[in-house]
C-alpha cells in the first residue's frame, strides 16, 4: 500500500474543497428520511460487477455494470448505492438502466436523506418491477464526478505540462456483498508517472493493476464485503483546462407575437487547472501562439447552436467582447467565443451569450384546443474536447403572458422547480415562468430536451394591444379634462 496517509490527506483536502459546495446540495432533499442508524437491508448481492472509469474528459465518467440477485425471500425493488458524503455532492447525472433493455426509460433514482454526519450517503434506485427471489437483473449505472481531478503539482509554469491526480476506491462502492468485480480505468494518455500498486494480489494472482496501454485494470477481486474501500490514485498528464462553471443561468423566452425564441446564457467560469507558479508572461504566451502547444489555459469556447439560430451576442460585465465569430449556414450554426484573456488555472471569467431562433422549430400547437408544446434543449453551452462541468444550472423558461396549465417533463434530474411570474414590456398580469434547477451537470447533457406544455387561448394575445390602447386613451382623456379647467388667477380678459 503506497502512502495511504498521503492519499487520505489528499482526500481530506478534496472534501474540504467541496465543503463549500455542499451547501448547494441541501436542496437535494427527498421525501424519504432514514434513521441515523440505517443500514441497507442485505437483500441483494452483486453477482458480477464491472466498473469502467473513463478519464478522457476533465470529469471522470463511471459506468458500473452489475448483475444483482435477490437473496431475500420476498420480492425486492429498492437497491441502495452508497457514496462517500463528500463525493455525493459532486456526483452528477446518475442514471440507472436495465442493461438488457437499453432503450427503456431510466429507473427512478433519488438521494435519500440521512444523518448528515455520516460519512456514507445513499442513492436509492427503484427497480420498476420488484425482483423476485433468486432472480437476477443487470443494471447499468452511469454517472460522472465533478471537480474530481486535482492538479499535482498545484502550481506549474506557464508552458509546462499539467498532471492531475484522480483518487478513487479500487473496490466499487456497494451496499451489498460483491462476488466478483473489477475496475477498468481508461486514461487519455500513456504518460502516467505515478499510480497506486496494490500489494495484495487479486483473484487472478497477477500484478494489480494490470496495464494495457493507457488502460489499467484493478481486480478482479472476489467476495468483497459491503462497504469495503481501497483507495488508490493515479497521476497522469492532462494538459488541458479544467473548465468549471460554478453557475449557469439560462433564460429562454417564448414570444408568440414575434415568433421568436430568445435564449440567453450567463456563465460564471473558472479554470480548476494548476495555477501559474510565476505571473502571466505575455511574451512567452505570444511566442507559443504560432506553434499552439497544449496548455492548461482556456483559450476559446466553441458553442454549436441549433441550426437556424441567429443574432448571437457575446458580452460581459463591461460590454461587448469583439473576439467572437459566428458561422451560420444550412448545416451548422457555430458560435466561437474567445474570452478577453486566456484563462489560466485559478482565473475566472464570467460572460453572457444570447441568440434568437425561429419559434416554429421549437413550438407545436396541438390539433385540439389551445395547447402548445414547447421542446427546447435543457442545456446548450460550449462543447469542448476536454468537457465542461456545471456545478449548478438554473433554467428559466418565460412563457407568453396568459399561458396557463403548465407542465414540464425532462430526463435531466432536477433539484428544484417552481413557477413564478415575470413582468416585462408593459405586462399587466405578467408572464408565467418556470424556474428549474439542476446540479452537477456536464456538457454531455447538451442533447437532453425539456418539453413544456401549456394552454394559451388566442384572446390572451390581444391583451397587450388593448391595454396599451386603453391606457393611452385614458391618458389623453385626463390631459384633455385637466386642460379644459380654468385655473387662471384674476379676471378673464374679454377678447
Amino acid at each position: 500500500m503506497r502512502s495511504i496517509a498521503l492519499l487520505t490527506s489528499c482526500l481530506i483536502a478534496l472534501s474540504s474543497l467541496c465543503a463549500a459546495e455542499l451547501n448547494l446540495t441541501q436542496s437535494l432533499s427527498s421525501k424519504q428520511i432514514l434513521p441515523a442508524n440505517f443500514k441497507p437491508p442485505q437483500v441483494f448481492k452483486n453477482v458480477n460487477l464491472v466498473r469502467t472509469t473513463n478519464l478522457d474528459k476533465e470529469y471522470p465518467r463511471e459506468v458500473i455494470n452489475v448483475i444483482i440477485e435477490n437473496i431475500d425471500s420476498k420480492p425486492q425493488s429498492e437497491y441502495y448505492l452508497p457514496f462517500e458524503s463528500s463525493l455525493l455532492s459532486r456526483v452528477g447525472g446518475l442514471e440507472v438502466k436495465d442493461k438488457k433493455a437499453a432503450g427503456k426509460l431510466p429507473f427512478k433514482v433519488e438521494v435519500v436523506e440521512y444523518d448528515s454526519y455520516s460519512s456514507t450517503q445513499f442513492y436509492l434506485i427503484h427497480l420498476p418491477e420488484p425482483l423476485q427471489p433468486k432472480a437476477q437483473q443487470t443494471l447499468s449505472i452511469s454517472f460522472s464526478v465533478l471537480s474530481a481531478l486535482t492538479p499535482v503539482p498545484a502550481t506549474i509554469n506557464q508552458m509546462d505540462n499539467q498532471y492531475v491526480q484522480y483518487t478513487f476506491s479500487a473496490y466499487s462502492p456497494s451496499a451489498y456483498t460483491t462476488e466478483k468485480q473489477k475496475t477498468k480505468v481508461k486514461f487519455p494518455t500513456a504518460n502516467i508517472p505515478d499510480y497506486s500498486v496494490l500489494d495484495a494480489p487479486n483473484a487472478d494472482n497477477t500484478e494489480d493493476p494490470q496495464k494495457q496501454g493507457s488502460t489499467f485494470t484493478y481486480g478482479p477481486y472476489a467476495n468483497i464485503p459491503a462497504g469495503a474501500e481501497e483507495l488508490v490514485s493515479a497521476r497522469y498528464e492532462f494538459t488541458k483546462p479544467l473548465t468549471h462553471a460554478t453557475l449557469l443561468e439560462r433564460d429562454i423566452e417564448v414570444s408568440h407575437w414575434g415568433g421568436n425564441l430568445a435564449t440567453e446564457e450567463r456563465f460564471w467560469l473558472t479554470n480548476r487547472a494548476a495555477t501559474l507558479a510565476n505571473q502571466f508572461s505575455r511574451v512567452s504566451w505570444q511566442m507559443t501562439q504560432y506553434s499552439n502547444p497544449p496548455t492548461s489555459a482556456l483559450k476559446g469556447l466553441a458553442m454549436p447552436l441549433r441550426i437556424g439560430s441567429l443574432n448571437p451576442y457575446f458580452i460581459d460585465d463591461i460590454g461587448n467582447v469583439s473576439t467572437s465569430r459566428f458561422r451560420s449556414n444550412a448545416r451548422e450554426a457555430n458560435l466561437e467565443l474567445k474570452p478577453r484573456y486566456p484563462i489560466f488555472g485559478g482565473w475566472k471569467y464570467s460572460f453572457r451569450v444570447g441568440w434568437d431562433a425561429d419559434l416554429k422549430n421549437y413550438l407545436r400547437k396541438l390539433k385540439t384546443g389551445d395547447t402548445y408544446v414547447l421542446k427546447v434543449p435543457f442545456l446548450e453551452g460550449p462543447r469542448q474536447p476536454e468537457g465542461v462541468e456545471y456545478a449548478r444550472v438554473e433554467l428559466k423558461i418565460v412563457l407568453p403572458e396568459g399561458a396557463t396549465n403548465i407542465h414540464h417533463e425532462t430526463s435531466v434530474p432536477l433539484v428544484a422547480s417552481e413557477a413564478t411570474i415575470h413582468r416585462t414590456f408593459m405586462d399587466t398580469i405578467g408572464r408565467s415562468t418556470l424556474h428549474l434547477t439542476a446540479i452537477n451537470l456536464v456538457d454531455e447533457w447538451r442533447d437532453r430536451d425539456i418539453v413544456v406544455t401549456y394552454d394559451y387561448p388566442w384572446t390572451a394575445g390581444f391583451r397587450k394591444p388593448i391595454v396599451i390602447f386603453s391606457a393611452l386613451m385614458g391618458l389623453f382623456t385626463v390631459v384633455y379634462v385637466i386642460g379644459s379647467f380654468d385655473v387662471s388667477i384674476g379676471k378673464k380678459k374679454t377678447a
Partner: protein
Amino acid sequence: MATSPVDPLLKQLTGPNTRSLLRVIILLTIAAAAVSSRLFSVIRFESIIHEFDPWFNFRATKYLVQNGFYSFWDWFDDRTWHPLGRVTGGTLYPGLMVTSGIIYHVLRFLTFPVDIRNICVLLAPGFSGLTAFATYLLTNEMVTSPSAGLLAAAFMGITPGYISRSVAGSYDNEAIAIFLLVFTFFLWIKAVKLGSVFWGALTALFYGYMVSAWGGYVFITNLLPLHAFVLICMGRYSPRLYVSYTSWYALGTLASMQIPFVGFLPIRSSEHMSALGVFGLLQIVGFVEFVRNQLPSRQFQTLLRALVLVIFAVSFGGLVLLTVSGVIAPWTGRFYSLWDTGYAKIHIPIIASVSEHQPTAWPAFFFDLSMMIWLFPAGVYMCFRKLTDEQVFIVIYAVLASYFAGVMVRLMLTLTPIVCVASAIAFSQILDTYMSIDSPTPEVQANGTPASASVAAASAMLPDGLRSTRNPIVGIYSYTSKLTVVAASTVYLMLFVMHCTWVTSNAYSSPSVVLASRLPDGSQHIIDDYREAYYWLRQNTPENAKIMSWWDYGYQIGGMADRPTLVDNNTWNNTHIATVGKAMSSREEVSYPIMRQHEVDYVLVVFGGLLGYSGDDINKFLWMVRIAEGIWPDEVKERNFFTARGEYRVDDEATPTMKNSLMYKMSYYNYNALFPAGQAQDRVRNTRLPAEGPQLTTIEEAFTSENWIIRIYKVKDLDNFGRDHGSAVAFDKGNKKKRAHKRKGARTLRVE
C-alpha cells in the same frame, strides 16, 4: 382641377394650424437628425460609455439606482483616493445622475426591461434633440422671421461644436447642461419681455437644475446680471426687468444653494458677487425710479443719481474689503486661467495637463463651427440694427462667449448656441430676402414694404446723380440673382451638413476605450486592450486590491475594473496625485516604500510602444514629473529627465534618472524579448531601445494585454528572509553577493 396637397403650402394659403403642424414636423425631423447623427459610435462599436469622466458618472448613476437617492446624497466613496476616500455625494453635480435615475425608474415602472447603461449612453443624444428645440424657442424670441428659429434648431442639432460633447456614450454633465443653458436663456428672455414673475420663477427653476448639473452654471450667473446691468446702463430700466431679475435671483440663488457641492458659494465666492451686486443695484434703481415718478424735480434727480453712484461705490468697496479679509472666497485658479492663459502652466500644472484646458487653436473654430463662424458676426451685426432688450443679450453673450472659447478649448461649447442663433438670424435674412418669388412691383412698392420704404426715404436725401437713387424702387427683380444667391446658400448649407457629418464621424465618435483599426482585407479590427486588462483585474484580483495608476485612468478602473484606486480624474487632492507622480518618476528603492505605505497591490501603466499608440504614459510622463516636482522640488527634478542637450529620450542616450524611473522600467520591462536581440523598437517615439532591457526587483509583471497597451505589475510582498528585494532577486539569479565592506567595529551586545 384637383389641387395637390402641397399647393396650399406653396401659395401661402395655409392657416396657422397647418403651419404649426408643419413646424412641429420640421422640429421633430431636426430632433431625429440630431439624435441619429450622434449614434455613429453605437453603430460602429457598441453601446458603451466613452472616455474617462463619463465612467465616473456612469458608476455614480449605478450607485444611485441601486442604493436610492438618500444614500447617494450621503455617499462616501472609500474605493477612490485610497486611503483618503472621497465624499462623493457632496462633491459632484448630481443633476445628470438624478436625471438618468428618474428616466430609469419611469421606464421600470412601465415595465420596460431597460439597462441603466443604455439610458446613460443615449441620454446625451436625447437631450440634444431637446437642445435643438430650446434653440428654436430662443431664436424665435429674437426675430420675427419664423424660419430663423428652425434654421437655428437645425444648426444646433448638427454642429460639431456641440456634438463633440454629446455623442452617444459621452455621458458627461454637458450632455444635459447645454440644453439647460439654452432653455434657461430662453426663459430669461421671455421673462424680460413679459416682466412676468411666472417666467422669472421658471428661469430660476431651470437655473437650479442647471446648477445641479454642471459647474458651468457660473456662466449664467454672470451673464444674466451683465445683461441686466447693461440694460440699466443703457437707460432701459423697466419694471419688467426688475420683476424678472429679482424673481430669478431670489429663487434661483435659493435653488442653487440646495446642491451640497455649491452650498453657500452663491453668497461667499467672488464668481457669484456680480449677481448679488446687480440685484442690489436694481433695488436702488427701482427705488430711484419710484421716487422720480413721485417727485419730478430735476435737482432731486441729480441728487439721487449721485446717491446711486455713492451706494454703488460703497458696496463695491465693501465687496473688495470682504474679499481681501477672506469672508468672500477669492477667485479660484481656474478663474484666473481664464484671463491669463499662461497662469495655469506656472501655478497649477494639473489643470494645464488636461488637453481640454488648453487655449483654442484657430482652426478649431472652423472645424467645430464651419460656415457659421463667418455668418455669426453678420447675425450679431443685425442685432445691433434694432437692439431690442433681447438683442442686447445676444450681443453680450456673443462677445463674452467668443472670448472664453478662445481661451479654453472646452468653452467652445458655450459659444456654440449663440453662434447657431446669430448665424441663423443672418442666414434666414438672406433666405427671406431672396426666396420670395414675387418681384417687388411699383404698385407693391407704393403700398410700402418697410424695407423699400425706408430706402425710398433715404434716397430722398441723396443727390440724383446715382443711378440707384434715380430709380427709387430698390428690390430684387431678377430671377437670376435670386436663383444664384439661393443656390449658393443651398450649396453652403449642404457643405455645412457634409462637414458636420464628416467631423462627427471621424473626430468625435471614437469611444477611446476601444480602438479601431483596419485589417488588410478592409474589415474592422477592434483593439480592446483596455477592457481586456480591466476585466482581468475585475475577475482575477481580490475585491479590495488597490490599483495605482496615473490619474487619467482612475475613473475607468473604478468603473470597469471595480477596484479601489489611489487617484482619479476628480483631481481634488494635488498632493496625493503628486505622490503617485513621485512613485512613478523615482527609483524603485524610493517608490517601493511609497507603494507599501499606500497599500498598493497592483500598478497599471499604459504603454503604446508596440502599437504606436501615442497617448501612453511615457508621453504623459513629464506631467507626472512636473506635478511631483511641485511638491518635492528637492527629490524630483524635471531637468534630470532631459539629456544634456535638452532632449526627452528613451533610447540608449536616456538619462540615468529616466532609465531608473519606475515608469520607464514598467513600460519597457521584458519588451525587447519580443524582438531579435538589439532590435527593440518603440513605435511611438520611433527610436531603437537599449539592447538590455530594464530589470525590476520590487514589482513583478502580472498581466500584459494583447497589444501591450496596458501592463499591470504586482507589488511584491516583503521578502521572507528580510532581505531587500534587490539582493533577493540577485540571489535568485545566482549572482554572487557583493559583500559590502563593512567596517568591523567592536562587537556590541544587541539590546532589543
